[in-house]
């Protein structure tokens, strides 16, 4: 067994929260800058120029890219031969979130009761924490602060097997097009196909963690990603919904086996400030 301390996990989560908020990952930045070059509409170009200038300023200044520093989604992979000592993994992650959001001057955007009081928890906890046991003695933490503007455009549909590829394509394109300017396009589109209802949506979140623009390793899914992206970008929605060529930067599909009777499809959008940071302990 290898010990990984509560303190170390909390420290790393705190650091990752702040870095994610202020420093756009290189893979996303590459696609954003390419989109700024490719855009032809006046308002679209204007929006993309501002987005690029904002990336530079946030990084230089250590300021959050977006005021919506999100609710924090953390994907933990814990090696079966690693031993978390000094407290529980979830407590350590939440302690890190609380410290990162306080010390990093990030916005606390979490309310305790979702329906009645909606009182702010004041420290942006709890995060949304997914933990998987994996071989080895390492602990990997992937931190994704997720803003609600894009999250509110999430969708799930339980398609019939007969709906097939065309049904999936239609649902994804319709979802992105009807979201219009709301999720801060150009977006990254996470698609989960298979599993069951909750699995499909979780896959769509995981899809957003893939290196932006990298195709699915299965050539058939890679081709479908390209076709869906092309159709989305023919919609004309454009940056911020002002009209233009670039509505989405990438479509990422993740899959899982499913039941003979169903074809679940989950969709999660990420805005152009698609923030994520990770570390392996």
């Amino acid at each position, binding site marked *: 067994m290898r010990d990984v301390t509560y303190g170390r996990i909390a420290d790393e989560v705190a650091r990752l929260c702040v870095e994610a908020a202020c420093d756009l990952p290189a893979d996303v930045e590459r696609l954003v800058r390419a989109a700024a070059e490719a855009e032809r509409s006046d308002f679209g170009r204007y929006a993309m120029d*501002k987005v690029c200038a904002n990336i530079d300023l946030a990084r230089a200044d250590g300021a*959050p*890219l*977006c*005021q*919506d520093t999100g609710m924090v989604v953390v994907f933990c992979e814990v090696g079966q031969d690693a031993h978390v000592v000094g407290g529980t993994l979830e407590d350590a992650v939440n302690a890190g979130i609380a410290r990162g959001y306080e010390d990093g*001057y990030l916005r606390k*955007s979490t309310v305790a009761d979702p329906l009645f009081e909606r009182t702010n928890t004041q420290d942006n906890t709890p995060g949304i924490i997914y933990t998987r046991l994996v071989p080895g003695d390492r602990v990997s933490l992937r931190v994704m602060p997720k803003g609600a503007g894009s999250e509110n455009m999430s969708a799930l549909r339980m398609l019939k097997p007969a709906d097939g590829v065309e049904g999936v394509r239609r649902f994804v394109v319709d979802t992105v097009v009807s979201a219009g300017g709301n999720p*801060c396009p150009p977006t990254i589109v996470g698609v989960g196909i298979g599993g069951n209802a909750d699995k499909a949506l979780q896959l769509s979140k995981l899809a957003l963690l893939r290196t932006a623009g990298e195709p699915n390793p299965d050539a058939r899914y890679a081709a479908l990603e390209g076709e869906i992206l092309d159709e989305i970008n023919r919609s*004309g929605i454009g940056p911020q919904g002002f009209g233009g060529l670039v509505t989405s930067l990438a479509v990422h599909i993740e899959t899982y086996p499913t039941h003979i009777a169903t074809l679940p499809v989950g969709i999660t959008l990420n805005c152009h400030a698609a923030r994520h940071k990770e570390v392996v302990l």
Partner: protein
Amino acid sequence: MSKQTPAGRAPKRVCAPLDDETADGLACGDMVSISGVIYTGRDAAHKRICEALAQGLPSPVDWSGQIIYYAGPTPARPGHVIGSCGPTTSGRMDAYTPMMLDQGLKAMIGKGPRSREVIGSMRRHHAVYLAAIGGAAALIATCVRSCEVVAYPDLGPEAIRRMEVVDYPAIVVVDARGNDLFESGPAAWRR
């Protein structure tokens, strides 16, 4: 701030608060540069204003002629007047907007499209809707000269703030005649 604006469109200067004549003089697609006093307010603040008015109590701000900015900034770091401060999705405020326009609200700054009901109410009230660039929050904060919580401090980021801004850049996306860039823009670029 970057001075770059869409080709051939010099920004129109707008002083906040503003009157009907100024609002009526703005056209969908105009670039504007706003200076003066604006107020932030988003979901929770709108809900409270609505509840206050329903009980016959006054709104904490006199909205007559004012611009509301749908925004909840990050906390100010030491030496800064405000943290990052970009627009939030305006559509979530649609349910409350006719009530705000009835109070005399003249302009809204946010991101994303508005409902037909809101646009109809804007036409009746000579009001405009302006878009800022969602996710350009660090850049936008450089236009803010002062920021003070004036109502609902317990709401934290959702409290109502009075902001002095200089040269805040925005685009007129819905004008007082109901022209809507979120309709016309994508329609022009659909392939």
